[in-house]
């Protein structure tokens, strides 16, 4: 059989011809193999009743019982709803605010003001979530917080923020916007700057005022960027922002779970607090599989809207 032989020889030749480039990729391959691919078979934990002393392979195999439990307790629904609802708010309000900031920045004439304000808006992106949690505490704390200080000053009753679940969707979304808008607006600002200034000037000469300019030239110009960013972020709609939630809400504030528990915080708790490894893995598996289909659909959409930007 001569055909396979030559094929093998030519593939060996390809390997040799590419060996340096292959070696250059080797550290990265090893990295992802170890830290990303090796944990994947560990999802087997989702199907067993993990027992620490027995170990993975001697723990009883329970088929879909973990998932059944998650559905029956309503946990799965709550986690899915919270994770998706927060992400949808983040994506929609985030992009809206980023576009607003970018457009207004573009309208400002004072270079000095532009520079300073951009620097200040960028500041929250550089700090850790631990500090963000502390800042939230500064504002929201019942005894000393700025918010209650203000409420007392105007004669209103102070609010117990850390035990009122209804306030948290607002707090978390506002904090997210506070942290990410300056950073995120750069993409839109760059896109606005890329707009041909002759078009804008022609419109001005034709008598278009600022509102018309924004409405009929700049916003349509930003639409493709918006759609692409939207579709990209859609892929991560089942992934939560663990650091934000964990540091804002606190590790074990169960009175707020109804509105603040997302997939990542649940998995973290099942690992570090409840030691229920199987339940944590079951939720992770659900997240990965569900998320995978969401990404595929998002990518299908990207392909339809703009074939050049699709990922695969």
């Amino acid at each position, binding site marked *: 059989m001569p055909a396979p032989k030559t094929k093998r020889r030519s593939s060996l030749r*390809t390997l040799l011809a590419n060996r340096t480039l*292959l070696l*250059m*990729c080797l*550290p*990265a*391959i090893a*990295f*992802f193999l*170890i*830290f990303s691919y*090796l944990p*994947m*078979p*560990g*999802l087997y934990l989702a199907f067993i009743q993990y027992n620490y002393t027995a170990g993975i392979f001697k723990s009883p195999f329970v088929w879909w019982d973990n998932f059944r439990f998650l559905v029956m307790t309503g946990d799965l629904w709550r986690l899915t709803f919270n994770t998706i609802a927060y992400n949808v708010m983040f994506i929609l309000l985030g992009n809206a605010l980023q576009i607003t*900031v970018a457009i*207004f920045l573009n*309208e*400002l*004439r004072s270079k000095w*003001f532009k520079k*300073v*304000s*951009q*620097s*200040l*808006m*960028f*500041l929250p992106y550089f*700090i*850790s979530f*631990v500090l963000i949690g*502390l*800042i939230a505490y*500064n504002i929201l704390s019942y*005894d*000393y*917080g*700025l918010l*209650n*200080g203000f409420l007392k000053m105007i004669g209103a009753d102070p609010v117990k923020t850390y035990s009122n679940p209804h306030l948290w969707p607002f707090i978390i979304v506002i904090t997210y916007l506070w942290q990410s*808008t*300056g*950073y995120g607006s*750069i993409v839109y600002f*760059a896109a606005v700057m890329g707009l041909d200034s002759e078009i804008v000037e022609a419109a001005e000469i034709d008598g278009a*005022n*600022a509102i018309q300019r*924004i409405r009929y030239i700049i916003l349509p110009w930003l639409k493709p960027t918006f759609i692409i960013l939207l579709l990209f972020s859609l892929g991560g709609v089942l992934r939560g922002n663990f*650091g934000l939630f964990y540091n804002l809400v606190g590790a074990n504030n169960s009175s707020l779970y109804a509105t603040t528990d997302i997939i990542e915080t649940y998995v973290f708790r099942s*690992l*570090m607090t409840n030691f229920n490894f199987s339940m*944590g*893995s079951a939720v*992770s598996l659900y997240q*990965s599989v569900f*998320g995978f289909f969401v990404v595929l659909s998002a990518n299908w959409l990207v392909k339809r809207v703009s074939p*050049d930007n699709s990922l*695969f």
Partner: protein
Amino acid sequence: MSAQRTAIKVDGSTLLVRIFGYGFIGAFALACFLPFMLVVGTSFTSESSIARHGFNFWPRVFSTFAYKIVFENPDLIIGSYWVTIGITVVGTAVGLFIVAMTGYALQRPDFHYRNRISFFIYFTTLFSGGLVPFYLLVNQYLALKDNYLAVLLPGLLSPFLIIMMKSFVRSIPHAITESAKIDGAGDFTIFLRLILPMTTPALATIGLFIAIGYWNEWYNAMLFLSPDMKYRTLQLFLYGVVTSADFIKNSSAASNVDLRDLPLESMKMATAVVATGPVILLYPLVQRFFIQGITVGAVKG
């Protein structure tokens, strides 16, 4: 050209947009900045004043007592500083080198395995084993519990950074690589001697991403460094101070202060200032690179 622009009469709606713009951007920028004032202001406020008036931007009763106690027993915070600096420097250097090397190789059009390896890397963003298996892997199978490597290694690279590097290097003409090959240079030499010096802005941006990640690292530290380990990363140290009064008492162990008199609230803020200070001071200098990086990375896709 700018003279021409100002020559055009500013009509009412343009003026309105401008006023609105200054107001909106000014307010937002202020909102981004004031919380930091709140932390700094409170750190300089006496504890009794906090108890009476709450947190404030400006100290009503000025006091440096909190800082005095933080620095009275500086061993723990200095240790955390060294851990964080060490991890940041080593992690950024190693991670940046690997990201650059991989990014260059993967955009070479003549690299046979380019698509397969790209997909191998990209797939990890689509599907993952999740936290529990990752924890068991690092903790038990790699036996990195209480080892700083458990904080260092997982932060080295990410698919996002490799893709970013790829799109950066793509703007360098392939002809450079080809002509160097004709001259007899090997692939690695081409990368090291020709490509790397040409991608300084990219390296600065990606290096910053990695460095900020390490400086703010607390997640892996929380997972893998146990509380009885003496030195933690800076942010995990801060986390301990912020969330637990016991941690403050243990870590300050101020000799001549009655533990009941510890200024708990202002000490939290003082620790936050000490832990965050360097980044805040550095960021106006490095922000430019970030903007460059995001712009190029985003517009080119």
